């Protein structure tokens, strides 16, 4: 875990502390006895095999599921406005007739509430967010008219509009082309530079090694949590089920995940 950022004029990220966190659905325990801290301003990759509990952990931090045991402490305490969550996009019914601009503007929800009046500065703010993700020319389109990559950009724009101190992203680069994922990675790195606390569940280990200072290697429990270089060692990846054990002595370990 890195030191908190203290850049001038930057957003101070929130700090998320997990204490003996256990989360489950019905009989299944998805995350077990997880303790640790996402420091303010940290950029952490959450890595694990399918079903390792990555999404469950993010859902718990976002307040969508209640922990069975243990606790999640988020500082500063004003959670809702200060926490942006970009879930896997298949949870959204894209056929609903909402324009790209309106969708990006939804990021202001945390500030104006469910029933509050929409202020006029909301629209330039949403437009600014669309420019940041390169969708400003499609602002008037309907959500249903976007390609998969463009829709992912719109989701990022909504997060930009929200301007939260803590950002949770679940598989944000899955299924999009290289140009889109490059743009969105840069945006995410900018959030990190602005001092926000960013947590990302993802699969691409090369991306993790190249960009993320910290990594939480998850397989229901934490296998390792700390600096990426010390976390993603071959032995630990084998334990996490992300790499095949070496066949013979001297053979280089192969990554089991497609990269």
């Amino acid at each position, binding site marked *: 875990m890195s030191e908190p950022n203290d850049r001038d004029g930057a957003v101070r990220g929130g700090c998320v502390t997990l204490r003996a966190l256990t989360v489950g659905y019905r009989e299944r325990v998805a995350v077990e006895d997880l303790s640790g801290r996402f420091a303010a301003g940290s950029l952490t990759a959450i890595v694990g095999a399918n079903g390792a509990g990555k999404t469950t952990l993010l859902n718990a931090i*976002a*307040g*969508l599921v209640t922990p069975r045991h243990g606790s999640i402490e988020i500082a500063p305490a004003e959670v*809702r406005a200060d*926490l*942006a*969550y970009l*879930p896997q996009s298949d*949870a*959204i*019914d*894209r*056929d*609903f*007739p*909402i*324009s790209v601009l309106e969708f990006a503007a*939804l990021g202001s*929800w*945390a500030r104006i509430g*469910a*029933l509050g009046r929409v202020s006029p500065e909301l629209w330039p703010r949403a437009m600014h967010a669309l420019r940041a993700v390169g969708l400003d020319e499609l602002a008037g389109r*309907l959500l*249903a*008219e*976007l*390609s998969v990559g*463009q829709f992912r950009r719109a989701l990022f724009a909504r997060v930009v509009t929200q301007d939260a101190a803590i950002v949770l992203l679940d598989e944000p680069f899955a299924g999009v082309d290289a140009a889109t994922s490059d743009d969105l990675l840069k945006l995410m790195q900018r959030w990190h530079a602005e001092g926000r606390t960013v947590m990302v569940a993802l699969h691409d280990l090369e991306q993790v090694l190249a960009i993320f200072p910290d990594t939480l290697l998850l397989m229901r429990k934490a296998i390792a949590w700390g600096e990426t270089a010390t976390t993603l060692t071959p032995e630990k990846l084998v334990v996490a089920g992300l790499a095949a054990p070496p066949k013979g002595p001297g053979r280089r370990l192969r990554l089991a995940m497609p990269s």
Partner: protein
Amino acid sequence: MSLWSILVAPFAEYGFMRSALVACLALAMASGPLGTLLLLRRMGLVGDVLSHAVMPGAAIGFALVGSAPAVLSTGGLLTGIAVVLLMILGTRFGAQREDASLAAFYFASIGVGVLIVSLRGTNLDLMHVLLGSVLAIDVPTLILIVAIASIVVAALALMFRPLAIQSFDSTFLRTMGGSDSIYRAIFLVLVVLDLVAGFQALGTLLAGVPLLLPAAAARCWARRIGPLIGLSIGFGVAAGYAGLLLSYHLNVPSGPAIACAAALVYAVSALVPASRMLMTARNATRPT
């Protein structure tokens, strides 16, 4: 026969026609936006089932107290809301999917409702409950319908944003601290209210007509939410007006006439080549 005597005179000459027209206007105003949201949520059949859920309560009210509109409405509202609660509890805690329990409610409601009315009333009473009597609407009933429609429109205006987002991205609503189930319940209760109002005019079999058919027709012409709602209201008004005229001039039951007019609007919308070509031209700009 002049145009005036065909299109206007029936309403100018008869108070019951005016009452019926006002009832249809009120129903169209409330049902347009509500039906649009209902179809966008892919819950058209839920609306149909809930319209039948009104029946047992109305029937119990009829059997115990009598056929006063307030009695039928209160009874219908109670069983309608009970079914909404059961639906929400069922999907939250039960293993059954929603559509399975809906089918059970649908048949149970019709069975129980018809049974109770038949025990205490005549065939005419049964027809009244099943098909309504929009031409027999008295002032208290009209006030009831308009009041319910006003409540629905006001509630939609106040809560349109959370109701809309709950229908397509409930995860976001929950992340923002809003309750998924509460807004879903509010929406379904609004649907029940609207159906109780529709029940007074069109009966339990046709109460869903203003809710579903104009909104379905609007979807053939528009894609954005504003035009969808506007067209739904317009189609609802047109179907109500045309249905009443049809019923007056041909001397046929008014509820079914309104249903036929609404169905015609939908059929024309779905079939007219112009609307098809409009949609194709728009879809052609959609990237793959």
